């Protein structure tokens, strides 16, 4: 039914993403398709990496780990945003095309009053992406 699943990951908060990651892995096994893990980073140094290259390496390592844990085929894709806080949605929408994914599984927090002002990334992606988006609540 699907060809490739895209899973946005925030490497700083992997533990919070566990339900979505496990769900994506189960779906990948069910449909027998690969997963592309997408991380968004800024060109300037962040908590995780000094530069995008180092970030890419960490994301690659994460993808490998998921592959061996779940027995699925994975790849990693680094998207760069100058201002990640506000540009993460656009970067992810571009990443759907770049990875060639046709299904997105992503984690999202339980909505609160702030989501009326700033929609969550998952909500925004579901609204604008051309493919199917599954939002997994933490």
């Amino acid at each position, binding site marked *: 039914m699907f060809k490739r699943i895209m899973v946005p990951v925030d490497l700083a908060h992997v533990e919070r993403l566990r339900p979505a990651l496990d769900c994506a892995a189960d779906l990948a096994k069910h449909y027998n398709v*690969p997963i*592309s893990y*997408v991380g968004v980073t*800024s*060109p*300037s*140094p*962040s*908590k995780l990496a*000094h*530069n*995008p*290259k180092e970030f*890419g*390496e960490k*994301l*690659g390592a994460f*993808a*490998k780990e998921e*592959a061996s844990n779940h027995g699925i*085929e*994975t*790849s*990693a*894709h*680094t*998207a*760069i*945003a*100058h*201002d*990640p*806080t*506000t*540009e993460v949605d*656009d970067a992810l929408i571009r*990443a759907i095309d*770049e990875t060639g994914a046709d299904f997105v599984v992503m984690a999202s927090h339980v909505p*609160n*009053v*702030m989501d009326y002002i*700033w929609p969550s990334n998952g909500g925004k992606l579901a609204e604008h992406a051309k493919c199917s988006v599954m939002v997994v609540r933490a």
Partner: protein
Amino acid sequence: MAEEEDVSTGIPVPEGASDIIDTDYEIGQDNIEAQLGPFGLDIHNPVFLISGLSVVAFVVYALLAPDQAAAFFGWLRPALTSTFDGFFLISANIFVIFCLALIVSPFGAVRLGGVDATPDYGYAGWFSMLFAAGMGIGLMFFGVLEPAYYFGTPWGDEPLGAVRPFTEDGALIPENVEAAKRMALAATSYHWALHPWAIYAVVALALSLFSYNKGLPLSIRSAFYPILGERVWGWWGHMIDIIAVFATLFGLATSLGLGAQQANAGLEFVYGIPTNVTVQVLLIIGITLLALISVVRGLDGGVKVLSEINMIVAIALLLFVVFTAGAVGIFTDFGKTLVAYVQEVIPLSNPFGREDDGYREGWTAFYWAWWISWSPFVGMFIARVSRGRTVREFLTCVLIIPSLVCIFWMAVFGGTAINDMIANVDASAVKANVIDAYKPELSLFAMLDSLPLASITSTVGIVLVIVFFVTSSDSGSLVIDTITAGGKVDAPVPQRVFWCTFEGLVAIALLIGGGLGSLQAMVISTGLPFTIVLLLMCWCIFKGLMQEYKHV
């Protein structure tokens, strides 16, 4: 199985070798991440809290004891600029020489962001953001005022003791006109060309080098790693960052308050809208709301777009003045100004054996302190958008080209204003508002009044003043947000909203309660400690480039 060849897709080009500083410090390790009701927080402890509280404390002090604050800071600023004028002048000269030397030195080949990095922004977006962050407002305010002032000043502060073109009762002395105009334009260009841009370039270069090449957090303290070592993550670093936030926030808030008064004066001059606190508070609210939209849309979607729009409107106004005031005359003026600048820049920047105290202390030292107090903000913002350039390209584009643009701007706006004063000695609106009665906020509109379509261009002028404030306010909020998040550029959106709003509230509080002037004097006073900080930065840049040079 992982597809290894896919691992680094998304990065256009590998970043290449650079000399990452090996520190155990992890960006964000001192941060407090919390969920405050619906708001996510990710702030540096203790920089965020101390900066915020000290800003509140100073506002309260200025509101509760306005006379004392005004008396103290009103004394402090001139005391600093007249005592340390030599220090400011020498330091600024060092920054210019340092930058020019780097352009021609082999270090110029070092690329910010690693040998294979590619520029994040194209030239148009980059230049627009350079100007819109920190200099645009000044160009609007001083473009007419300063040349016209030097040309006709009756207050004895002519640059280098230049001749006066007017007699005591305001009649023109034709043989003095050329010399006075030449010196007025050269002396103005001196304050807007190489020296201020070198000040910004030093900070910007230090931060981009230590952040993009050395992997340290994007924060002022990172530039001091070569001197302070690991101590930079402790109280030394906290102090540097707190003063930077403090100077940036007050610099923006007081400019916002004073700028609202200028825009209001313009509105009165053009539309007869009364000058009062209500209109000014509405203007500040409007500017802050626009800045909020911009920061929420982010760097590429908000700040950059707004800066580009701003630049297009500014160029349109510039071209309008060029062609309506006589293009041939203006290009001649530009040529003459450039020559005069080159001839006079050394005498003007020489701190010794001068007798023009009024100009040197009242204007030059004031400007240097002002640029330097803004340099953490503007420098950090320039750093944020300059990744991927070589040091040579960076300095050429941050130092040489903006200098030429500023000299051209001054030749156009100042030259036109001076020509109007010469042509209509008795009826010139510029002369009436700058020399006969000193109303600096009206100088731009008075000059536009002498050209055709004044009501349209004055409106454009007011819009530009407002939008330049928006572009300073949004980039400033991003800078403060990054510093107070310990160098993280991905702190939650509510934090930047907080700083942007806070800045507007401080401006409104000071506007209503009084104290804009005294707190602005205080901000300018921070220029003195920062001058020392910048001198040390030059040394750190040198050390950092030595290590990077190995990879070129």
